[in-house]
């Protein structure tokens, strides 16, 4: 009997991703796929879709289950080895809390979004790739939750991420980012998440965070990071493929895609400020500064990518030069904001120690030395005098990115940047020309935004009238989950655990006190 010939990867990919669909006859195709035309994107031939990875479902399950087994084996070992004692310092854990609260729910949002898009597009090849990404994103949400759940036994602020995600003012930043994409059409969603976020900006999210975790002894996070990394490279490739596919299918798609790239570059950049701040302020052992990361991952790699797309008629996203001007100050302004609104945060804030201030002087130079360093030293003096600074008055918030408006004018770090926009006799405020442009393109969408301070003042935040009642409504316990790190239960526990450790392995803790 002749042996059946093994089919090659290319043939297998063709068999498992093409010809799975059919032209409907009982209902018109446009009724079955109502979402994939109204955005104005014209697709002439869905078969031109190519998945560069040629991944099929059977191979997908096999790879992913192998990764799961490795991941959970390492997490078990980490736990049995009291892994939480091996991190660089308990301040580091606040970066993990921020990730759990802000980023993990986005993974779940991405799962929902990709499932929807996979259903919405009428090309079978695209649907297969998007479906796998949807499953990936669910897996990422789960593995992160499992990795972090161990820490929840030892550190505060990790007890209610889903509750916080729906209520907390600082989490409306990532939440609204994703809901903006989820409520857009399928092509905009894929451009926003697969291309702008995954391809252009994800290096700024994953590289610093995962290397930061490794550098600070957090093997749980490092392990899920590596487990997700091979998926991320597939997602990035998909993002580029989607954008090229749209641009190659019809020239009328070019201005539509350009407008999305402008919008989602800016929205992604605004969101990544949280990551930059984590890199500069929350990692006791620093990997690189936000400014350096921005220069490598955007100014070099990102710009080179856009230069490659120039042949399709795509230019650099609007206001990229503003983002580069802000690289010297973004993280200092944002940390200052988080520090003062610390009474309503599910993680701790603090003033960096002298060694860290010197590192910032080295990385950020003059502006840091003249403006932010004296401010940080003033705040330290206040704290040492028993007057730790909090701003308990709710802030003005950007109607689009939902970040409290702490930004300063692109060419003047001493002047606050506010843009007033108007729709149907009601004024709204934006943090930048980038966000104001996004508002003005779709005002009816953004006037619906639920802006947390306004929600409080309208009496819609559980009746809270001030920041302390608001924090209770978030289920955050004052000075346990919130507020200053120094003297917090997390800090005191850490000192006690360190004191119990056998001396030969004693680590330098970056001295919190």
């Amino acid at each position: 009997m002749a042996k059946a010939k093994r089919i090659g990867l290319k043939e297998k990919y063709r068999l498992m991703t093409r010809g799975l669909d059919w032209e409907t006859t009982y209902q018109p195709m446009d009724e079955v796929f109502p979402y994939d035309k109204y955005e104005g994107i014209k697709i002439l031939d869905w078969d031109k879709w190519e998945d560069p990875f040629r991944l099929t479902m059977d191979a997908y399950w096999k790879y992913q289950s192998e990764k799961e087994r490795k991941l959970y084996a390492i997490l078990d070992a980490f736990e049995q080895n009291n892994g939480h004692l091996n991190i660089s310092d308990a301040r580091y854990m606040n970066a993990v809390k921020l990730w759990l609260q802000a980023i993990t729910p986005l993974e779940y949002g991405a799962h929902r979004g990709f499932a929807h898009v996979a259903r919405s597009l009428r090309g079978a090849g695209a649907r297969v790739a998007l479906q796998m990404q949807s499953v990936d994103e669910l897996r990422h949400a789960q593995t992160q939750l499992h990795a972090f759940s161990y820490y929840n036994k030892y550190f505060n602020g990790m007890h209610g991420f889903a509750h916080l995600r729906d209520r907390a003012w600082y989490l409306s930043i990532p939440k609204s980012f994703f809901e903006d994409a989820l409520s857009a059409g399928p092509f905009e969603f894929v451009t926003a998440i697969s291309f702008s976020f995954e391809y252009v900006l994800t290096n700024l999210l994953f590289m610093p965070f995962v290397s930061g975790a490794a550098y600070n002894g957090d093997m749980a996070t490092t392990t899920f990071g590596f487990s997700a990394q091979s998926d991320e490279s597939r997602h990035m490739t998909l993002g580029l493929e989607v954008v090229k596919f749209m641009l190659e299918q019809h020239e009328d798609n070019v201005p539509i895609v350009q407008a999305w790239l402008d919008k989602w570059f800016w929205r992604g950049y605004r969101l990544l400020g949280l990551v930059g701040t984590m890199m500069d302020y929350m990692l006791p052992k620093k990997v690189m500064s936000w400014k350096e990361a921005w220069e490598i991952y955007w100014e070099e790699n990102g710009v080179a990518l856009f230069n490659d797309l120039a042949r399709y008629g795509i230019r650099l996203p609007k206001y990229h030069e503003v983002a580069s001007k802000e690289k010297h100050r973004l993280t200092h302004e944002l940390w200052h904001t988080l520090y003062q609104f610390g009474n309503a945060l599910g993680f701790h804030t603090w003033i960096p120690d002298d060694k860290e201030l010197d590192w910032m002087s080295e990385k950020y130079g003059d502006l840091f030395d003249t403006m932010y360093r004296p401010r940080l030293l003033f705040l330290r003096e206040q704290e040492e005098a028993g007057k730790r600074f909090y701003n308990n008055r709710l802030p003005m918030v950007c109607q689009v990115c939902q970040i409290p408006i702490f930004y300063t004018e692109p060419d003047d770090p001493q002047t606050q940047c506010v843009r007033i926009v108007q729709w149907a006799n009601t004024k709204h405020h934006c943090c930048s020309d980038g966000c104001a442009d996004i508002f003005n393109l779709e005002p009816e969408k953004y006037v619906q935004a639920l802006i947390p301070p306004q929600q409080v003042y309208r009496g819609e935040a559980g009746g809270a009238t001030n920041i302390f009642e608001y924090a209770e409504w978030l289920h955050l316990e004052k000075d346990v989950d919130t507020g200053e790190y120094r003297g917090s239960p997390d800090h005191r526990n850490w000192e006690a655990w360190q004191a119990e450790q056998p001396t030969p392995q004693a680590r330098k803790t970056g001295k919190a006190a």
Partner: protein
Amino acid sequence: MTVKHLGDEYVFESENREERYGGDINFYIQWEQHLLYACPSAYRAPVAMTLRDFMETMFRPDYAAHPDTAKLDVDKLEWKRDQRPWQPDLDKSLKDNGIGHMDYLQIRSPGLEGMHGVGN
């Protein structure tokens, strides 16, 4: 520009419309050159409150941590409303001063220019 949408229309009211404040208004104020306070502050206040009362009973306590606040003379401020120069009467109500829902006020205090020579 408008939102591309399915269905016949895409119309929504502003979430933060004035009717939802029960006669009060939501407005904002920023003290220029005092970036210790990172953001413009948001308030809900009754429209009948005088601007002086607002400044003395709400603004000043909120900004107490800044060394300039104790020296602040509210009669010697330069004002802007929605980013244009403006001259209010402190003893008139918010309403009679023309301060409306979602207005953005800015004050500058000549002689009190923040800390460290950089408006901190």
